[in-house]
């Protein structure tokens, strides 16, 4: 079974290789002559006066939470799709009921305007 996942480590090695190659090439080939002025953080000509951690608008959280919920729905769909041959009509109807409940949630979400950014 594990052989099916053998591509993943290869993929990781190749991805890491490409990333490292790009960094290394820049490091080796690019000229680097830093001085204090160049190394200072740049913010439109001012000294940096604020931390970069700006509080996010609460709407981002709503989008993230709704994303998690529908992500979980997908997670339930996955084993369902794989086992569809064994679970018969009852299994099919179970998923239909599950999706109906979530569709009602989706209608609510849509009508409330939770998906709009204004």
């Amino acid at each position, binding site marked *: 079974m594990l052989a099916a996942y053998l591509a993943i480590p290869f993929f990781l090695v190749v991805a890491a290789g490409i990333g490292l190659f790009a960094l290394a090439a820049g490091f080796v080939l690019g000229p680097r002559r830093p001085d204090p002025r160049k190394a200072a953080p740049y913010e439109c000509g001012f000294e940096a006066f604020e*931390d970069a951690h700006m509080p996010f608008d609460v709407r981002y959280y709503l989008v993230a939470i709704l994303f998690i919920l529908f992500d979980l729905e997908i997670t339930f769909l996955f084993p369902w799709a794989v086992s569809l041959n064994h679970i018969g009509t009852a299994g099919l109807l179970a998923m239909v009921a599950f999706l109906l*409940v979530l569709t009602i949630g989706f209608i609510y979400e849509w009508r409330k305007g939770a998906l709009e950014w204004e």
Partner: protein
Amino acid sequence: MLPALPFYLASAFLIGASLGVVGSRNPVYAALFLVLAFVSAAVLWLLAGAEFLAMALVVVYVGAVMVLFLFVVMMIDVRLAVLHRSFVRYLPLGVLVAVAMMVQIIAALRGLAQGAGHAFPEGGNTEALGTLIYTRFLYPFEIAGLILLLAIVAAIALTLRRREGTRHQDPGRQVLVRKQDRLRLWRLPPHQASGEQLPASAQREDT
């Protein structure tokens, strides 16, 4: 049994990433280390044959929960120095709890582990899991649907706030607009259109 090399590799990554989570001074780095820890844990689960759990960990935790984590890290204004001081202060207690938990887990596993099954079901355990969830455990599955519905309602009811006076586009109305709505032709008497009455900006451009 577990292939030894990938197991030790993933475990090393998991331990290193976990140390990174508690040790890094920048909370964003800590969150990213947590992503690495989740991925390493997913690899461990995969090696143990729990492929569905591994997938769920990557899809739900790495994909969705960590995004929320990063938002939260951005939102709270973490005072790093204070955090670091409390880290040192609570280190002895933390080590004590960790050791106690480890002893407990070892003690518990020694008593119980023999009975636990290791057999991989035919066709992978995602299929086996699906066959169980949608037949025998159909009822809890539907309850999970209700809980997700509840979460949708609660999240929207508690955070969605309409703002007054925001401007946004309505493509439908944009398409439906006609020439009369936007363009108005004025017939002006010719003597008013002399150079003196040009707008100030236009004059400045001439000079």
